[in-house]
């Protein structure tokens, strides 16, 4: 647990080299401005096996674990928070297909993800809270050999640019955690799908995020993903998994902001001294370094638990909450250490800060994570 394997260190190194060779902050800023996905870089990441590294080899994946996927996400985000996030989110939702899909569904779609043919998306929520299953009005009704999907999903990552969407639908009369909801895979080309882009965002503008509408969208029965009735349970398990990846992105963002601030305070002089010679600066650096390490430890721990067959939903929520908070704090402090330059686009740390905050707001805020953790830690009261 406290030592990465040789193979994991090699993955880190490969991701570092890839990022060093491919990422360019001016390109990133342009893509952000024009709301354009880094397609070329994504295709190269695919070639090197970074996309779907955690998926089984028979689907073109790397046959590795979440910890390995975390190392890639962290390393890429550390070099460029935006590019790292965009690549890490290329297969967002496909985790669900990999985990719950039947052989036929997985076989027909996952290779297209790992070969870089399509991006993926998942529509779970219908409110502004990233883990709220209390409102679920989207329905999938049987009609002959097909499902007919109607409804609207909010904040769909890769919404409008993905090859397919996994949609959480009501499929029964009553619905709760274990009954009445199902996941349906809807190919992007089906008739009746509408896309409402959400416009400018606080961060990550190169990744499309949109509300999707479904109006009498018909898909074959076989597009049912996993078990009928278990949609919410599957969605929760999916969230428990991707929260670890979000935590890893946050760790990378914090480390990247820290790297930049550290280099700056060692070079910048004011009052005839390097900033790194002032005690207040030194202590800020010490705090930041500590926070990055703490966030990294809990993230690796959650990933390692997951990979060794002991997935812990509380640990996932803790990792996401703690890592995102620490990333916000560390990148905020990085801006402060840069002074006026920190507020300028050119120095990047302001972008890291905005992206850290975005991670904190997605997949459930701190309050949502605490609800989840408390449910588990406190358990049922007598």
């Amino acid at each position, binding site marked *: 647990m406290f030592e990465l394997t040789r193979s994991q260190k090699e993955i880190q190194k490969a991701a570092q080299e890839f990022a060093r060779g491919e990422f360019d902050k001016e390109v990133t800023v342009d893509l952000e401005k024009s709301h354009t996905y880094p397609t070329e870089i994504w295709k190269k990441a695919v070639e090197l096996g970074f996309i779907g590294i955690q998926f089984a080899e028979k689907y073109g994946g790397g046959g590795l674990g979440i910890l390995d996927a975390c190392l890639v996400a962290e390393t890429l985000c550390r070099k460029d928070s935006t590019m790292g996030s965009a690549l890490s989110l290329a297969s967002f939702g496909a985790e669900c297909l990999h985990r719950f899909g039947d052989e036929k569904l997985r076989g027909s779609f996952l290779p297209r993800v790992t070969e870089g043919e399509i991006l993926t998306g998942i529509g779970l929520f219908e409110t*502004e809270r990233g883990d709220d299953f209390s409102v679920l009005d989207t329905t999938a009704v049987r009609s002959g050999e097909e499902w007919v999907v109607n409804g609207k999903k909010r904040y769909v990552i890769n919404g409008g640019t993905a090859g397919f969407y996994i949609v959480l639908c009501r499929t029964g009369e009553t619905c709760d955690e274990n009954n009445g909801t199902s996941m349906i895979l809807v190919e992007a080309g089906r008739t009746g799908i509408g896309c409402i882009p959400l416009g*400018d965002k606080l961060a990550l503008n190169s990744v499309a995020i949109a509300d999707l509408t479904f109006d009498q969208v018909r898909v074959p029965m076989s597009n049912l993903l996993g078990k009928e009735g278990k949609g919410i349970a599957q969605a929760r398990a999916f969230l428990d998994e991707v929260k670890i990846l979000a935590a890893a992105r946050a760790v990378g963002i914090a480390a990247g902001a820290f790297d930049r601030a550290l280099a700056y305070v060692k070079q910048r002089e*004011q009052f005839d001294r390097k900033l790194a010679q002032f005690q207040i600066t030194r202590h800020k650096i010490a705090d930041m370094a500590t926070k990055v390490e703490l966030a990294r430890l809990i993230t690796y721990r959650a990933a390692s638990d997951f990979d060794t067959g002991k997935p812990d939903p509380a640990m996932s929520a803790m990792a996401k909450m703690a890592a995102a908070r620490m990333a*916000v704090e560390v990148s905020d402090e990085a*801006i402060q250490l840069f*002074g*006026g330059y920190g*507020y*300028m686009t050119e120095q990047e740390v302001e972008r890291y800060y905005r992206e850290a905050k975005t991670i904190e707001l997605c997949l459930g805020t701190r*309050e949502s994570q605490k609800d989840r953790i408390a449910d588990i830690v406190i358990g049922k009261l007598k």
Partner: protein
Amino acid sequence: MQLLPYTENHHRFRARLRKFLAEEVVPHVDDWETDHIVPRDVWKKMGREGFICPALSKEYGGAGGDFLHSTIVIEEISRTNHSGLATPLHSDIVVPYIESYASEIQKRHYLPLCASGDVITAVAMTEPNAGSDLVSMQTTAEADGDDIVLNGSKTFITNGINCDLVIVAARNPLAGNPHKAISLYLVEDGTPGFEKGRRLEKMGFHSQDTAELFFNDCRIPRTNRLGEDGDGFYMLMEKLQQERLVCAVMGVAAAEQIFEWSMRYCRETAGPKGPMSRSQAVAFALVEMSTDIKLGRTFLDKLIAEHMAGEQIVIETSMAKYWTTDLAKRIADRALDLFGQGGTLETTPPVRAFRDVRVMSIFAGTNEIMKGIVAKFMGM
């Protein structure tokens, strides 16, 4: 109980300003954010209505009000959720240097134009290598007959593109004592050798034309110096109390505005069990935010009263600058949590505020500098 002596006149002034901003500013703010600049004509409109230089004496074309009028302008502009229309910097930070230190001829010439919005001002202190450490500024002012020749570059200058008149801090390379080397000079736009550089791309303050300024053998008459040679630092120290207080008003006003949006959103938006504000966590968060803001407001109002009474409150205004600008940042951060994923969209008002307030703990002396000043003045 109202701590500050607001009169009927002040209340009418606020109401008139709020209406003006709703009609002439708010509808254009999104465009200005995209354009990265505010058009000059809105300055003139504001000037015509007496909203620029509200505290400047009528003798020089001002509105003849007091610092409460200035406070009202800062607060009301904060409510428009943009930072481009930086009239408070002009009215309450730059123009007072001219009012206090320029010659009578210069005052009669410039001040009415400053009050009418025809002349937009900026102050240029920060340099690429001299931010917190002002003493190390490299821009030089060398005497040559009856002229002064300026050389150097300045950065992060608010109103940098729009400005018609800049107060430039520069050092006399022949002066021995570094603290007696700095003087302030009036430089008009269009003076040969004075160039406006690129507009800087920033996290926020998108409608604000923050820019670099360059001086290459920029020749100005010696009479453009404010006050005596080498008195620059003394003047800066003299005026920093009000500058820090202005920052504190901005901080508290921004926090109050962000809180107002958050409160309304949480009351009007349905959560899993009734309005969001019924959630205990949300309610406590709002209570904590409101308590913090009220503490800041109470401190601020007391300082405004003391400042208006002419008291020396360097320690307290430095404390207030750091505490209230941190407050604004903390409140913005917390507000986005309440908006959840909506907090990632630019159409959600606190998102722009989140980007804008981040600079407050950096500008006008970083909050670390503020703490250093307080420590020094407290004898540590």
